[in-house]
């Protein structure tokens, strides 16, 4: 056999191996989390764990509802805030902006992407929390400390912005210039070209990027826990405190991992998150599949 073919086969084998290995990580994680959280299962029913709001781990009461709701709220706000901003920014940078503008904005985005969560958290506590407490909340409620769902959502939104913008920019700029020329020649404005051609062409990519960003948001930890109030109660409004799952794990794991039952409960929280992410991804894929059918 030819040496080049051999190379190709070898490469194929190695790549396949790497892919499988990296895939295995998911299964190892999933099974590991399940095994680690087994002690909680043994003592409680799933229904109790998921739908009870009673969180007294030292007394053996584990109700995860507040955390699940907290996660959903914060993630929802973050995505609702970041998505339009990211889309508009990416469109501006790829379709409208001169190249020197890009030169300045790209490093800014990189910084945004690379700052440690702690910094976002600090920034949130120094700026966002007081703003909500002093400026925003008084319009709606008597008093709010500012450590709220909203603060968590805003900070988290800003954290996923760079991911979204970077991916969108890459995806948009992979659209051949010919498409733009074709549309512009017909007398379409730039925005129309973007709306009907570019976004349409890249729709699957955009959706996939959003899914990634949501996954990322679901798992983001430190920054959120510093600003969201961490109250294990189901939030009822944007100005309530909440307690997302990653914050729960991060807050307690370092201190409590030497207590088996507590650790199991935290691992169960991670398992919930795992399942939520899985569930969400599967759903989004079904939607994506439908969309792709209609778009292409």
């Amino acid at each position: 056999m030819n040496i080049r073919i051999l190379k190709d086969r070898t490469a194929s084998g190695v790549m396949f191996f790497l892919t499988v290995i990296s895939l295995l990580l998911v299964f190892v994680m999933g099974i590991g989390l399940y095994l680690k959280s087994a002690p909680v299962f043994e003592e409680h029913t799933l229904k109790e764990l998921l739908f009870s709001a009673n969180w007294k781990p030292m007394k053996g009461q584990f109700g995860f509802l507040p955390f699940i709701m907290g996660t959903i709220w914060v993630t929802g706000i973050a995505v609702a805030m970041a998505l339009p901003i990211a889309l508009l920014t990416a469109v501006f940078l790829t379709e409208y902006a001169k190249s020197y503008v890009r030169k300045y904005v790209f490093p800014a985005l990189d910084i945004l992407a690379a700052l440690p969560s702690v910094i976002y958290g600090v920034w949130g506590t120094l700026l966002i929390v007081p703003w909500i407490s002093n400026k925003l909340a008084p319009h709606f409620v008597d008093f709010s400390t500012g450590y709220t769902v909203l603060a968590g959502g805003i900070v988290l939104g800003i954290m996923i912005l760079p991911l979204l913008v970077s991916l969108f920019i890459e995806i948009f700029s992979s659209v051949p210039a010919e498409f733009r020329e074709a549309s512009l020649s017909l007398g379409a404005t730039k925005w129309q070209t973007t709306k009907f051609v570019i976004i349409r062409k890249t729709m699957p990519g955009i959706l996939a990027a959003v899914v990634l960003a949501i996954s990322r948001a679901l798992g983001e930890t430190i920054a959120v826990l510093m600003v969201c109030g961490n109250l294990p109660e189901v939030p009822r409004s944007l100005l309530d405190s909440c307690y997302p799952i990653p914050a729960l794990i991060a807050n307690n794991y370092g201190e409590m991992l030497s207590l088996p039952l507590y650790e199991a409960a935290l691992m169960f929280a991670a398992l919930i998150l795992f399942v939520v992410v899985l569930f969400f991804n599967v759903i989004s894929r079904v939607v994506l599949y439908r969309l792709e059918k209609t778009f292409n």
Partner: protein
Amino acid sequence: MKFFEEKIFRFLMIVATLVVFGFVISIIWTIASRGWGAMSWDMITKLPGGGFYIGKEGGFLNAIVGSLYIVGASTILGLLISIPVVFYLNVYLKKKSKFAYIARLAYDILFGIPSIVYGAFGFTIMIYLGLRTSLAGGIIVITLLIIPIFIRSMDEIAREFPRDILDTTYSLGATRYESMRVVLRQIAPGIATATLLSVGRAIGDAAAVMFTAGYTDSIPTSLSQPAATLPLAVFFQLSSPVKEVQDRAYAAALVLTLIVLILSIAGRFITNRFSKNKLQ
């Protein structure tokens, strides 16, 4: 009407871009204004002295070096693992391959797992094997953490890769392995973006390294010694009661930001040179 729409959206876009820029400036200003005072040569050239944590002499060179070690090693490892995977998914497998479908799903899930869980996982395994916190542990866990980021963000970009180019290389008798070079050239900016995203996550993550790399005042001389990292330095010093130490946390954050800035500019510069041949 359409011009009205055009104007509105143009306006919104500029606002959005300014908002993003505003966030960056606001965050950097917050850090810089508090960290600049504590910034000095000592900070980045000295190890912490005995009284460093009550505001006395020393610097956080240990954290800088530790972070660079971990980020450097895990980025290289991550690239080595994820580029082949991305290539496999996009070139070797058919576009509608079931395996690729499942793989992408799996990476998305990994993407959503909080870093603390990676840390916990790594820690559990290390305890099981009787290993201490170490540089190696940190590198491995951070590598695992950023692999999904690498793979999925590169993959999203590679999927938009024009198929004509692949067909062309095949026509020339290239094996799939050999067309890798061409694919690489075309998606080079995408790799840069993915790398910067991953480096950002790697350099900024405190939770995963807390359990696996630990935090210590000395610079590790081997893979089996614990290592400090900048985000942990920030995290830890922020909680100090002493104002000087808190300010040093901001100084550490400032250093981190500068490192990122340098990496980003260098990365963009290199890929710009790489991608001048890119198809438009």
